């Protein structure tokens, strides 16, 4: 077994004058979950497409399971599984037919393809729906079916491109459990996500990617340290007094803080001293006579990571703004 399951060196890819990847270096150890975290348009899908042999890089090289993604594309396809950003299932086939077809395309004999399909559908609780056409499946079921398809070939390395985007909260949690189970079985997983909390829960290591570049890499704890643990978020009633309020509170935590000029939100990283800093902030602002609209401690989101790493908010693409804020949890206020 290679000591790195995935290794990329200065991957570059452009589409016309859009530079999707501007030199991406990644290393993923066997049997770990690696989270590629970034906003829409960061280059996550492009990276996954290169690593799964769908797209050739313009420059740089990449190896997966010891195979060069360009030179050894054919043998590589035997050991990878891909669940793309949209559930790639044939709506007119039943769940069983979908998985059997993929099994046959891995060149399994018909009875073996059938056996594996039945087994895998059972495992992902799709047995009852196995004989219905995929058209009748819910979004969560389609995603699970898609995942089944990516697992028929018993891949050593599994690629999941935004596996929970668009799922309802319950299906999302189910998907998380599945991913953890697969990891326990020894599968190396590279997953992409726009949600820090998702990467935090699932990944052993995270790379934060922004407009085609990795801007930070490390364990979830290391990354959260760079943001400063939890975040105190403050909004004042009178927007003209944001500056004054910021002057009172920025400095309270271990790592400065920032003001979002668009929303007027002041964020202060608080490490593990959330309650103490919250109390102090309320006291100071009260003394200064600044009326509060909202004050809350929350876990850091992708936006906070970006703010801490780059000093600007994550560039939002065409996804609804709300998505970036999933990680928020209001505690006090």
């Amino acid at each position, binding site marked *: 077994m290679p000591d790195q399951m995935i290794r990329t060196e200065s991957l570059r890819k452009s589409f016309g004058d859009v530079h999707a990847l501007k030199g991406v270096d990644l290393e993923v150890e066997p049997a770990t979950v690696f989270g590629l975290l970034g906003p829409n348009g960061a280059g996550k899908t492009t990276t996954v497409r290169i690593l799964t042999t769908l797209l050739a890089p313009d420059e740089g090289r990449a190896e997966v399971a010891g195979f060069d993604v360009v030179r050894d594309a054919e043998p590589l396809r035997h050991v990878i599984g*891909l669940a793309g950003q949209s559930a790639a299932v044939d709506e007119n086939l039943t769940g069983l037919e979908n998985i059997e077809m993929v099994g046959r395309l891995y*060149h399994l004999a018909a009875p073996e393809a059938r056996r594996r399909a039945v087994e895998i559908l059972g495992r992902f609780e799709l047995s009852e729906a196995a004989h219905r056409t995929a058209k009748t499946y819910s979004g969560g079921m389609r995603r699970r079916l898609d995942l089944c398809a990516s697992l028929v070939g018993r891949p050593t390395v599994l690629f999941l491109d935004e596996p929970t985007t668009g799922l309802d909260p319950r299906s999302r949690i189910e998907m998380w459990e599945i991913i953890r189970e697969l990891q326990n079985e020894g599968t190396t997983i590279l997953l992409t996500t726009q949600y820090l909390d998702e990467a935090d829960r699932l990944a052993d290591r995270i790379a934060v990617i922004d407009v085609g570049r990795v801007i930070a890499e490390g364990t979830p704890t290391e990354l959260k340290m760079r943001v400063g643990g939890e975040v105190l978020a403050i909004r004042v009633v009178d927007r003209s007094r944001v500056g004054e309020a910021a002057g009172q509170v920025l400095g309270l935590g271990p790592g400065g803080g920032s003001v979002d000029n668009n929303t007027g939100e002041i964020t202060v990283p608080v490490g593990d001293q959330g309650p103490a800093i919250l109390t102090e902030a309320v006291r100071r602002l009260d003394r200064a006579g600044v009326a509060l609209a909202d004050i809350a401690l929350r876990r850091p989101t992708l936006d906070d990571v970006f703010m801490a790493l780059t000093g600007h908010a994550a560039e939002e693409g065409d996804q609804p703004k709300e998505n970036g804020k999933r990680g928020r949890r209001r505690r006090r206020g």
Partner: protein
Amino acid sequence: MSATITAERTVDTERRLRYAIGDGWVLTKRNLITYVRKPDLLVFSTIQPVMFVLLFVYVFGGAMKLALPAGLPYVDFLMPGIFVQTAIFAATQTGVGLAEDLKKGLVDRFRSLPMARSAVLSGRTLADSAAIAFQVVLMLVVAVLVGFRLHAGLPKGLLALAGALSVGYAFTWMFALAGLSLKSVEAVQAASFTLIFPFVFASSAFVPADTFPHWLQSWSKVNPVSIWVDTFRDLTLGHLNPAGENLMTHLWQSTAWFLAILVIFVPLSVRLYRKT
């Protein structure tokens, strides 16, 4: 040494060929299932040519008789044209099907699998050819019901039928290229019609070409649809063919066009599929 290498290569080539056929067949079946489960796909695309036949035979038929040699019913003249038209229109489904698979991410899934690179296209064009055969045969039944008769014997008639199916097959590859490059169902549909129009309608398919203005006659003469239809008329009408029976010349020209389309569009489509 070199003997073992050669032997290994032969095994490798043999295995590749086996996979190409096996994987192509898996996808052919998959596409045929879609036709069976979504019968509207076939029903609607068959209704249109049936209406064409009824329109041409009953509405234009009377007037058209004047332009034809005595003793040649219009329906007998018309049907070879209708068969080719039906085959070509039915072939557009190849482009539509590929565009759908691209949009849904199925093509990405297939390309990430260790399957034969040719299978998506061969499975698509083969299944669509079966659908073409179904529609052409259905047209034949309708044709017989409205009075269509062979004038040159059954074997030649069957050869004409096989010819019409080959034309459809060749066009599936043309539409495969359209599907892969346009990537959207609507765009493929619009482009297909534009692509088809000058071939099917500016030809001798529905009326004798000698009534056309001079410039149109020049185009019609080299238009493969005219050449195919004239060939099939040789085969179904014999000496009654108003374009003049000339079977041998027509046959080789037809074959040349058929091969030319395949030689151009198969490699282009396969290359584009690999790169998409």
